[in-house]
């Protein structure tokens, strides 16, 4: 594939990187701990509206990161559906006639939806939250698709696009609302913080599930393409 010299070069590069990186990690681990961030987090956790620290960081303390991260997901989904077949995303080759699988699915799908709901609800005080729940939703969708169940809502129409941005839009509006109320961007009003975080998470779960599913389903079979500039 590559010349032997190039291979040895690559190997040396990788070994050097590993050695230097390992040395640096080792040296840094010898230092006295510098961080009092976990302590600060504990102090302020009560004011964040959720009991689970990771959720508090994601949806309150560093909510701007999370907002932009959803934006990144939406971008990927857009790029995906922009290349998809425009009529329908159904893939006839995937349809299965396996009755056993279908019967199994009839039980499995509600169970997985239930699990997704649990993960979402648990996020407030235990491990779980919008991302895990959204991934579970998407996994359910993937299963349904693999067995050929029709997923008409994934047609790249207006409904799909609304679904993709629903969670993001609510998040953004909450951010704006606090700014209109005279506070900084994304600051939740103290008294509603719990409810707001839960509603944002719920819609985020739906949107994340849809985005991940759309990305999976967006099989690029659309032949139309833009001619290169100057080639008409």
């Amino acid at each position, binding site marked *: 594939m590559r010349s032997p010299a190039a291979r040895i070069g690559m190997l040396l590069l990788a070994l050097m990187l590993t050695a230097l990186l390992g040395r640096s990690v080792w040296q840094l681990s010898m230092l006295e701990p510098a961080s009092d961030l976990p302590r600060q987090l504990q102090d302020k956790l009560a004011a964040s509206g959720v009991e689970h620290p990771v959720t508090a960081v994601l949806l309150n303390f560093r909510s701007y990161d999370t907002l932009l991260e959803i934006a990144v997901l939406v971008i990927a989904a857009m790029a995906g559906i922009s290349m998809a077949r425009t009529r329908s995303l159904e893939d006839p080759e995937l349809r299965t006639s396996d009755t056993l699988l279908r019967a199994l699915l009839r039980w499995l799908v509600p169970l997985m939806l239930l699990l997704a709901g649990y993960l979402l609800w648990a996020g407030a005080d235990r491990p*779980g939250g919008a*991302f895990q729940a959204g991934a579970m939703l998407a*996994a359910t969708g993937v299963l349904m698709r693999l067995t050929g169940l029709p997923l008409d809502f994934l047609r790249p129409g207006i409904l799909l696009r609304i679904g993709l941005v629903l969670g993001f839009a609510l998040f953004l509006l909450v951010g704006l609302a606090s700014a209109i109320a005279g506070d900084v961007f994304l600051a939740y009003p103290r008294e509603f913080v719990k409810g707001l975080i839960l509603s944002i998470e719920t819609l985020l779960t739906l949107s994340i599930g849809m985005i*991940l599913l759309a990305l*999976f389903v967006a099989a690029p079979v659309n032949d139309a393409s833009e001619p290169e500039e100057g080639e008409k």
Partner: protein
Amino acid sequence: MVEILLDLLLALALILTAAAALLSQDLFRAIVVFIAFGLLMAVCWVRLQAPDIALAEAAIGAGLTGVLLLDAVSHFRRGRGTDSVVEEERG
């Protein structure tokens, strides 16, 4: 003591699966090994007392990424119409 041994084994398994996922000749197998890597990562996160990441890694890192890649490989295998398919890389 047992825990340290477990951690060492896990770390070794991570490195081996990572190398195997990249070196495997067969793309399909490479991705299956990669999914195994993701699951091992999830165990790792449990050992690092990060259950949130473990859940996300298992669902997103191993599950969805794996399905996405497997789907792509089967797409490559089916080829595009009658064209010859450049499926496996050489060397």
